[in-house]
């Protein structure tokens, strides 16, 4: 009955049950990048030009977060009526990088804390007549 589910953007995450963000790693200096870097290594101490696709850690700790109460402009596709949404910046331990993502639907922002453990989930970001478009979101572990 449900519409076809497709990623809102191709190639940025896997769609398996335990979804992972897809970054890239320089084959020379081993630096991680998200979104994927494919041309030239951004580490100024490295001249690498070859990269491998790597799934990133699917858990991390909240670095900061905010709930937006005003409807953003296009190209954000807003539900009607507008529903406030929360965006989190999450630190991945292994990659030592902070990655943004919306917070999963139904999570009370009052329950969020800096330093809290979160994991990656996929949810529908928006839909049209043809499909539901999926995006990664952060959700408190056991939350």
């Amino acid at each position, binding site marked *: 009955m449900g519409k076809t589910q497709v990623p809102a953007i191709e190639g940025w995450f896997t769609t398996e049950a335990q979804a992972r963000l897809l970054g890239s790693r320089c084959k020379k200096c081993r*630096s991680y990048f998200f979104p994927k870097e494919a041309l030239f290594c951004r580490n100024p101490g490295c001249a690498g030009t070859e990269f491998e696709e790597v799934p990133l850690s699917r858990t991390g700790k909240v670095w*900061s977060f*905010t709930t*937006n109460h005003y409807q953003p402009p296009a190209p954000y596709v807003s539900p009607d009526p507008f529903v406030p949404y929360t965006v989190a910046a999450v630190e991945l331990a292994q990659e030592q990088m902070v990655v*943004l993502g919306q917070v999963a639907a139904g999570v009370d922002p009052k329950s969020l804390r800096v330093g809290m453990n979160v994991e990656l989930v996929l949810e529908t970001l928006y839909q049209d007549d043809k499909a539901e478009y999926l995006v990664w979101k952060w959700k408190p572990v056991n939350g």
Partner: protein
Amino acid sequence: MAKDVAILGVGMHPWGKWGKNFVEYGIKACQDALKDAGVAWKDIQFISGADTVRCGYPGYVAGATFAQALGWSGARVASSYAACASGATAMNTARAQILAGFCDVALVVGADTTPKGFLAPTAGERRDDPDWLRFRLLGATNPTYFAFYARRRMDLYGATDRDFAKVKVKNSKHGLHNPNARYRKEVTEDEVLASPMVSDPLRLLEICATSDGGAAVVLSSMEYARKRTTKPITIAAISTVTPKYPNTIIEMPNFATDSAAVASAPEVAFRDSIAGAAYEEAGVGPEDVSLAEVYDLSSALELDWYENIGLCTPGDAERLLNDGATTLGGRVPVNPSGGLSCFGEAVPAQAIAQVCELVWQLRGQANGRQVQNAKVGITVNQGLFGHGSSVIVRR
């Protein structure tokens, strides 16, 4: 001292929502700056325009657009785009021309017409543009990023909603008598805290509005200036640094920071390095600063800048604010103009407007908001995609 250039004249079009073409704002600012400098437009040898990307083709070639509007004179020309740091980049371009000996006197101008509400990315289906994608995939407006920093201050340093509100209260008081400010109305902490939440913990009165506006400066060599004045105001430094890899603080419009897994984070973080480069170039330090114009895109962000420009150590900004040090009459007033809080943001004009304020302050012409005996002022600003901007002005 050999690298100083003089600021002979400054001018602005008041900020607001005027609904006019950006050229009109820029021309008003140019005419005021030229008059202030006592230099005729036809004697300007170089025009440096700060670009606005929301005004289509003429906005992309601001230098020539303003040159045509003022009347073609054969002046050499440049146009600069660096988001919010566009004005500083345009000033730096003119400064370099002067210091290289290619010209003696230059006009720098930036002006903008903005839409109501959030600054939105360029229209169309732009799936390779991170600025477009952050809105599409995350709904990450500019205030989203400001709110991340504000929330971190609360977590790391115990900052409160009331601290953030106090910044707005201070700046609203500073801007009361500034004829170029858009908002000239005193607000109370309770009014700030009662205003609608935009991006938690930041409220409507704590986030800078989008505005129309224009600003211009006339720069010259020291030799040219000394023929006209015995006490020239000078630019001692312009910093336009980029971040050092890995940049580990999330910034507009990025989805992620650089990774510090392989290369460790630089000793000096990006926002600290912006003012740091300016201090080094000018040969002065934070202790020499009489006043600062900082980029208060949010009330909370002003507190970050206190630390980033060395007015206090990390975590001490709330104390500096609450002690009154950054209020007019205090040790080092910050945003005596009223800041973006009172002006709103007119992107390519903003960094130039900050310098105009320093000049008025250093000349003792900042009526109703004068910092007593101001000698050295610093501006700081940051454009998205990694454009640092800081200018040090002294008399």
